[in-house]
């Protein structure tokens, strides 16, 4: 029996409904026995044509669209589009709005990492973690609901600032959630990051060639998990990251474990960043109004802006021809590279059971590949 399996190559279709990731995507695997010989990514289950839709919408109408590009982490999309337009227009953003945006982005990073913790441990067969982290993520979602009026899709950051100021006493409630999450980290450590099962599964698995990582377009925690200290927040600081005290986190190892540790430490760091933001946030307006949205023309020009999302460099290439609608909005999500060309490279020689495990560690997100 085993002889036959070793000789014969079988095709295995993993997905599109998938244990490893949020969103639908299919991996076609050529396997012999338990080992993947090669694989190919198939996307197309989630194409909503957002970029095309935006070309036929007013600039303001694009904001409710972009947040839907990434379900777990909509805020970098909003922030990117807003900043791209602001760069073309030369519109100033009030200082307080920048602080609020930074807070929103970091809270969103934490929420995404919590979801990732659930997915990562779920794909390793540890089923308590998802229950806990998804529950704890809800505390952040509650904050978003209070701040923006929406739980998942916030539609909060827009060109010129943010949509509303903080509600009364909001900072205090943020701090409470931060304190709680900080305390929770010890539980997570025990359950996941120090868990023998996880260590066994994660260490030495899913190795990215450190020397090739930059060239392959690896970004975010997977890159920093190779010990390479690149982070958009430091490389090209936006909003108020250059006014805060923090260091780029790296971890040697290039494997699933090192990527996990980068995220775990960044989660802790985000808590500190949000606290600093709350301490330093100035008073003042949060929105610098633009023209009437129905007649809002962005001057001709283009801009590329990027943020460090929870999965790495998220970028928007915004082109305006001076009309009421965008000429082109091109979205660069980290998963576009991680989930296709990098994953296809890494699949070779992998265990079938590790496929979704590794996909998770790369932060694969089909909705942002297809947009």
């Amino acid at each position: 029996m085993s002889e036959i399996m070793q000789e014969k190559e079988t095709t295995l279709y993993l997905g599109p409904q998938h244990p490893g990731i949020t969103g639908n995507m299919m991996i076609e695997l050529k396997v012999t026995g338990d080992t993947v010989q090669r694989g190919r990514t198939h996307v197309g289950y989630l194409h909503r044509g957002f970029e095309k839709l935006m070309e036929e919408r007013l600039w303001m109408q694009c904001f409710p669209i972009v947040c839907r590009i990434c379900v777990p982490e909509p805020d970098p999309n909003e922030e990117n589009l807003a900043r791209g337009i602001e760069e073309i227009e030369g519109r100033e953003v009030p200082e307080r709005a920048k602080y609020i945006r930074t807070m929103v982005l970091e809270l969103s990073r934490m929420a995404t990492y919590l979801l990732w913790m659930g997915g990562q441990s779920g794909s390793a067969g540890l089923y308590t973690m998802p229950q806990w982290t998804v529950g704890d993520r809800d505390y952040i979602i509650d904050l978003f609901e209070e701040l923006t009026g929406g739980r998942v899709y916030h539609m909060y950051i827009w060109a010129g600032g943010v949509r509303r100021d903080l509600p009364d006493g909001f900072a205090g409630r943020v701090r409470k959630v931060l304190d709680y999450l900080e305390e929770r980290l010890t539980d997570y450590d025990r359950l996941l990051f120090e868990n023998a099962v996880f260590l066994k599964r994660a260490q030495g698995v899913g190795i990215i060639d450190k020397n090739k990582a930059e060239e392959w377009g690896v970004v975010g925690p997977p890159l920093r998990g190779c010990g390479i200290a690149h982070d958009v927040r430091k490389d090209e600081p936006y909003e108020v990251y250059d006014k805060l005290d923090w260091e780029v986190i790296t971890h040697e190892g290039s494997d699933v474990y090192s990527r996990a540790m980068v995220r775990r430490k960044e989660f802790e760091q985000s808590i500190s960043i949000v606290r600093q933001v709350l301490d330093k946030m100035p008073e003042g307006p949060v929105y610098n109004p633009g023209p009437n949205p129905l007649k809002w023309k962005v001057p001709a020009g283009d801009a590329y802006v990027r943020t460090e999302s929870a999965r790495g460099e998220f970028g928007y290439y915004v082109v305006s021809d001076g009309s009421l609608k965008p000429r082109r909005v091109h979205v660069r999500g980290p998963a576009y590279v991680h989930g296709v060309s990098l994953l296809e490279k890494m699949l070779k020689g992998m265990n079938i059971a590790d496929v979704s495990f590794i996909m998770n560690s790369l932060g694969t997100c089909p909705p942002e590949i297809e947009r």
Partner: protein
Amino acid sequence: MSTQFAIEEELKQSINNAFRSAKVTIKRQGRINVEFRSGILPAFVSYLKEYLDFKHLVMMSCVDWLEDNEFEIVYHLWSYDHKVHIMVKVRLDREKPVMQSISKLWDQAETYEREIHEMNGVEFEGHPGMRDFILEDWEDLPPMRRDFKTREFVDKTYEWRTGREDKQDVRETIAKQYDTEVPDFKNSK
């Protein structure tokens, strides 16, 4: 040489020394635009990658300038050392859009080129395996072309829900209330 953009100016010098035809503009700190002719693009980006440290291919975009009858392919490159983002823009004839593939320089370019091929209909010479990416069995006009009209596509592909036919246009309603007609001078020019 202005000290404000010292690195950018230096890069501009280097690029112009090597490729005299490249039109380099410094947009702001950390942003350089290069307009380039399509012929030897792979050699140019390869130079940027190997000699000027633009290791990170951020993405490739395609902008349809229908009015000029041109596509603009934009190569976004980032140098971690210089902290500079370079946009190399190449204009292609929209009637016969052909570009050389750069997938030998960056593996991930293969995916970008597949998408641009499928969405805009640009051919990439030397691409290792041109096939569908997001769309499947697509026979219509490449959808990211400006002359592909989503509304028409939707009308012929899907059925609109019923029950909303009683909707009215406010301006028309008002015109009707006062027995007037709104002429169309805007489109009659």
